[in-house]
């Protein structure tokens, strides 16, 4: 009996290693730096997490079908640049399109999404029809989009964004009221995205087909699933999410440049993997992805609070990726 008890505690620790680690980190930093646990910091964390979560959601579909998307970061970049160039203040001196009037914000978002979706569809087609491995296909797309973005912006930074646009990323629900709880719009947008993706992954045919393709692509094809079409949809949807993330990031920063989003794909892939999205395909949950992103952002903020120099944070992040995945894999290895 005693042995069983120990075993089940061990299994619990293993199964929830990431959550436990996270809580521990939060407690330790909270004790050492009391203002760590504050409304302002929570706000900061949630806003940072929100955008990364949206990107990770996009990548997750690719990972679940045993693919990957290395063009994510650059798509975020082009999404940000397109949005920013079309939403500058009318009286801004260095305006990208000097004669441009005030476009509706929703229309600009749609344009950014549309442009990225075209790239996503190309990704999907190259992978499905030309059978180029996703790693290579999206690696090519990454460079290609960067080039397009350079040509489009002329490598100039873009600033002077309209305040109604920046307000989307920096504003809060119930702001300027007496309410003690003010919720950042970004958080709400991320929650809506998460909810929609949860629905898509768990309650629709698309989701079931996606998991089936990841579980066994040949079997999926034999079962009558249109594998090519599903993959194109997955890469297109991912691109739409990157575009949204880019749109929000530009607004959040109040400006952008071609370098926006660089390297984000790797962070997103790492977060997904930490969150239990299996690189062997067929496995991955929205809640896990959220957890993975949270771990990452919490870690960054904690290190910041502890006064660790940014250069060192990369070293820690790299270690965490490997350790987290190794811990996660133990769940499966232990069964042998």
């Amino acid at each position, binding site marked *: 009996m005693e042995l069983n008890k120990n075993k089940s505690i061990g299994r619990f620790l293993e199964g929830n290693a990431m959550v436990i680690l996270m809580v521990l980190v939060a407690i330790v930093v909270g004790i050492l730096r009391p203002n760590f646990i504050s409304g302002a910091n929570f706000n900061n964390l949630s806003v940072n997490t929100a955008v990364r979560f949206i990107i990770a959601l996009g990548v997750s579909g690719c990972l679940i079908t045993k693919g990957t998307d290395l063009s994510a970061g650059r798509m975020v970049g082009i999404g940000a640049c397109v949005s920013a160039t079309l939403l500058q203040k009318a009286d801004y001196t260095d305006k990208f399109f000097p004669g441009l009037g005030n476009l509706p914000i929703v229309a600009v978002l749609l344009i950014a999404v549309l442009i990225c979706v075209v790239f996503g569809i190309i990704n999907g087609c190259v992978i499905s029809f030309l059978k180029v491995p996703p790693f290579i296909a999206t690696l090519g797309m990454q460079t290609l989009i960067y080039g397009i973005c350079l040509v489009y912006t002329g490598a100039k930074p873009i600033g002077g964004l309209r305040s109604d646009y920046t307000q989307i990323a920096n504003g809060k629900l119930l702001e300027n009221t007496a309410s003690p709880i003010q919720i950042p719009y970004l958080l709400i947008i991320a929650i809506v995205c998460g909810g929609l993706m949860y*629905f898509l992954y768990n309650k*629709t*045919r698309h989701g079931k*087909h996606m*998991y*089936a393709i990841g579980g*066994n692509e040949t079997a999926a094809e034999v*079962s*009558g699933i*249109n594998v090519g079409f599903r993959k194109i949809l997955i890469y297109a949807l991912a691109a739409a999410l990157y575009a949204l993330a880019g749109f929000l990031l530009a607004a959040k920063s109040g400006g952008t440049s071609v370098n926006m989003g660089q390297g984000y794909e790797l962070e997103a892939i790492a977060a997904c993997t930490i969150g239990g999205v299996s690189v062997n395909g067929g496995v991955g949950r929205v809640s896990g992805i959220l957890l993975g992103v949270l771990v990452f952002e919490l870690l960054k903020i904690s290190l910041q609070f502890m006064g660790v120099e940014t250069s060192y944070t990369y070293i820690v992040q790299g270690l965490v990726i490997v350790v987290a995945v190794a811990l996660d894999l133990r769940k499966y290895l232990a069964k042998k």
Partner: protein
Amino acid sequence: MAEYRLEMRDVSKAFPGVQALDRAQLKLRPGSVHALMGENGAGKSTLMKCMFGIYKMDSGEIYYEGEKVSITDPMDALKRGIAMVHQELQPVPERSVAENIFIGRYPTKRWLGVISTIDHEKMFKDTEALLKEVRMSFDPKAKLGTLSVSQMQLVEIAKAVSADCKVLILDEPTSSLTSNEVEALFLIIEDLKAKGVSIIYISHKMDEILKISDEVTIMRDGAYIGTWDAKELTTDMIITRMVGRELTNLFPKRENEPGEVVLEVKDFTSINPKSFRDVNFTLRKGEILGVGGLVGAQRTELMEGLFGIRSHTTGEVIINGESLDVRRPRDTIRKGTALLTEDRRQSGVMGVLSVEDNVAIASLNRFIKWGIMLDGKKIRELVSDNVAKLSIKTPGLKTQIQSLSGGNQQKVLISRWLANNPDIFILDEPTRGIDVGAKYEIYCIIADLAKQGKSIVMISSELSELIGMSDRIMVMCDGRVTGFVDGKDANEENLMTLATQFS
């Protein structure tokens, strides 16, 4: 010299939720063939993996040549002279036959006394000698991937033999061999036996067991049932002891009545000139059409061609009077056709997915409500219905399919297609690698489907199964149909004659 080469005493091993081995035993004499039998899940493979050091046993003892030993890992086992040919091959298809045989222990030569490199010449020469020894003649330099599955299996056996072993474990060695190759394998086994090697032979094929083995140990539910002299045993006795009850009939009674023609195939020819060609046949409503032939007769390729997995050049497929342009599986599935593929692992099972998802995946279209959402409740109803109807043994609907036994996985795949309510059901080796009890259950399902008016095409390499289950048997050889035999008139001779027409 001890009486036994190797002895396993009271070996127990538990996995979470299941006692895989419960005081199992095995006594292996030198220079003999010892068959290990039992249903899937009886613990045969687990016992072998304990012997080979892949699993650590919870309790029990192993005596090797009279001495108590503990085998820590496969390397240790190999050093002691225990070799194993696994049921699932682990080849490196992009490398040569020789490299696959000598993997991990390549012969080396030294340059200038310091730099050690692989001695390819010696490796190829040794391989050639070795292949000759086991009566095989492949080019040692050929890429392993260019060989057929059965040839790869023989290479795997050669590899085990080359390790100069004293104990050789063969786990289902003949599952993909043709009967000629099986004969060749038996000669190899006889040679090894004469050299004093002890062979443990795991198989589900009764005739093979009775032919080749000296002693038979039977296991059930992880426990040792007994060891008998093979000469004293009959098929019935083995089955009774394996399943723990009398199996009076190997095949269920069929009450199907073949009706009108539902499928007509005309001059069907593959895009690959070496594959099926000029195939003509018809299938009736409620008929079970067996498809026989040797491995390599292109039966699987033909069925995959009809289903739209492989391309064809000419030919016509007519389903219910309607000519169909077969391009992709979706085309035929829509017309009420289902294909249970030969290789469960490669093209059937979605391992990490749940039983529920594996059942429902091909019929999700039927469960969409409000235009987009899946009706989870109805799906669960369908799945639990099927699980009950086919008596699938699973801890739950959310259990990963890969943790079920082969027979239960097969039943899950059958219910995947049943959920689609097909009229034509193509079954490719539906009972391969499945134990006797589950086999009978699958026969019953097939007979029942035919009775309901479904048309069945069943590929099988077991002649008894073809004869026992089919209304009509189509025999293929070398990509062509060589003849049809009525189920009542079929016997092993006339089927084999047709199956070897061109060889």
